[in-house]
């Protein structure tokens, strides 16, 4: 039965929702505006700044001073690489937990999740020493490794939830049909879990793309992704708002575009199995 809501209340709710949305979006909008102003105008009072002429000067300077595409490529390698390796480890792990659970499966899952509750700074020193001693500082391979490990619990958890929605009888049928464990996962489970795997993949690429704790601390120049590229414009000697804004826009634009085009897939994956 549909509830009848008075028009006045409906208008009010809609207005409140739009206001909240705008407030949350405002900083991003502000950064985009700032990035199209000259450095001098960017620090002017808001009204003066808004009426100042538009320019792409900040973008040109940023591209001249630092190699955007190098950082972009580092971000792609690190986020996609760590997500793919993570999936390769997590698919069999989630399979085992979803379809042949043991007495300790739930504890194991909770333990994995609990590693996410630990502050990253707590292991900064040992991690740094490990990286230094193994010669992994400022390497893409090192970052791929650390981001794989950081996001692995989330990947396993997401896949575990999706896999649990798949009827076990179908996998048993595959076993009866002579499928080995490998063919069972490859030909039956994975294709059926494609929506779930796709949304896990997308979400983890986004998480890895935005990860800024380890990427900032374990890289210098060679392996630095876009997060480090943004950070390089916030220097203690004085902030260059326009350039910082331009760098930020350039860093978030690719992932925003990816998210925009895959939002249907993302939402479908995140609500997978919620309603049956």
């Amino acid at each position, binding site marked *: 039965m549909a509830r009848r809501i008075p028009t006045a209340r409906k208008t009010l709710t809609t207005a409140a929702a739009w206001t909240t949305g705008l407030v949350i979006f405002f900083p991003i909008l502000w950064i985009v505006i700032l990035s199209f102003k000259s450095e001098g105008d960017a620090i002017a009072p808001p009204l003066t700044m808004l009426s100042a002429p538009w320019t792409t000067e900040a973008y040109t300077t940023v591209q001249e001073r630092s190699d955007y595409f190098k950082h972009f490529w580092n971000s792609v390698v690190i986020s996609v690489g760590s997500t793919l390796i993570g999936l390769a480890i997590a698919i069999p792990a989630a399979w085992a937990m979803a379809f042949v659970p043991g007495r300790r499966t739930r504890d194991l899952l909770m333990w994995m999740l609990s590693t996410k509750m630990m502050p990253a700074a707590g292991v900064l020193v040992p991690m740094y020493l490990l990286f230094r001693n193994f010669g992994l500082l400022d390497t893409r391979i090192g970052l791929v490794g650390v981001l794989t490990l950081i996001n692995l619990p989330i990947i396993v958890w997401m896949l575990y939830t999706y896999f649990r929605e798949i009827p076990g009888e*179908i996998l048993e*049928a*595959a076993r009866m049909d002579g499928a080995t464990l490998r063919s069972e996962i490859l030909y*039956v489970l994975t294709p059926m879990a494609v929506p779930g795997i796709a949304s896990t993949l997308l979400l983890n690429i986004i998480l890895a793309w935005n990860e800024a704790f380890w990427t900032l601390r374990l890289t210098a120049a060679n392996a630095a992704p876009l997060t480090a590229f943004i950070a390089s414009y916030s220097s203690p000697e004085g902030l260059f708002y326009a350039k910082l804004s331009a760098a930020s826009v350039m860093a978030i634009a690719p992932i925003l575009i990816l998210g925009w085009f895959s939002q249907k897939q993302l939402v479908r994956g995140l609500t997978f199995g919620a309603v049956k």
Partner: protein
Amino acid sequence: MGQIELSQVTKGFGDVTVIPPLDLRIEDGEFVVFVGPSGCGKSTLLRLIAGLEDTTSGRITIDGRDATDLSPAQRGLAMVFQSYALYPHMSVRKNIAFPLKMAGVPEEERARRVEAAAKVLNLTSYLDRRPGQLSGGQRQRVAIGRAIVREPKAFLFDEPLSNLDAALRMGMRLEITELHQRLKTTMIYVTHDQVEAMTMADKIVVLNAGRIEQVGSPLELYRRPRNLFVAGFIGSPKMNFVTGPEAARRDAATIGVRPEHIGISRDGGDWKGTVGVAEHLGSDTFLHVTTEHGMITVRAGGEVDAAHGDTIWLTPDPAHVHRFDAGGARL
């Protein structure tokens, strides 16, 4: 060949024993039905034979070869599941071909055998559809197709018809029986529906709490149920049980009479009663009669004019009175 033998097979989950030691021999080409109330262990037994569950102890041999520790695939059996368990992302053609692909059958032969199986099951025009585009009956046929294409030693059916509506169920029942007559392959069929058991089986295995209560042909079970459980489970409507002096008069603790073995009369008979509910099916009339010995169900052939409140006399056919002792065993 498809001769299956279980000796002293047991199954427990943790501390719970689902199947106490059990022996059973299934001959090649037999249609065997495991029947029993839900939770009686019939599906577990089937899954033990399939290899989807490991036995806790005991031995399973298939064609004389020890199969206890073989994987499901190595046992050479095919299974049809209650939920059909089709691969939703594959076309009907690929579903049926999947076991052949897993067995490494060359593509040309695969195509040939899929076509042949599809023809047998009237699926030829659906081969390129996905399972989601098929009706329940068609899905069940695809599941059967996937089973027959492998030419297994035996077919295992786990309540395959319980997701279908009544009319379709009857049709599929006939199809499976015909399939058995044509292929002459061993079939093991699990159901809780005693009508399916009676109509399809060469041999029925009645299970209760993991134990085999009786093994026999449908008519053997109908004519000579070994105990009260089997007597009450086989036959529809259910056998009437009478205890007390009426049973004592026949030297038994309980007597059982099937609804079809009771005569009715308006003038006189053994038991006087009042008609409660009268169910008129046309071909049969079922009367639920309240007597001093309890509620008795009577099956009167054809159309009988009896209505609620009528007084009638019932007379059990002495040749068909089953006698049981206090422990429930047949006398």
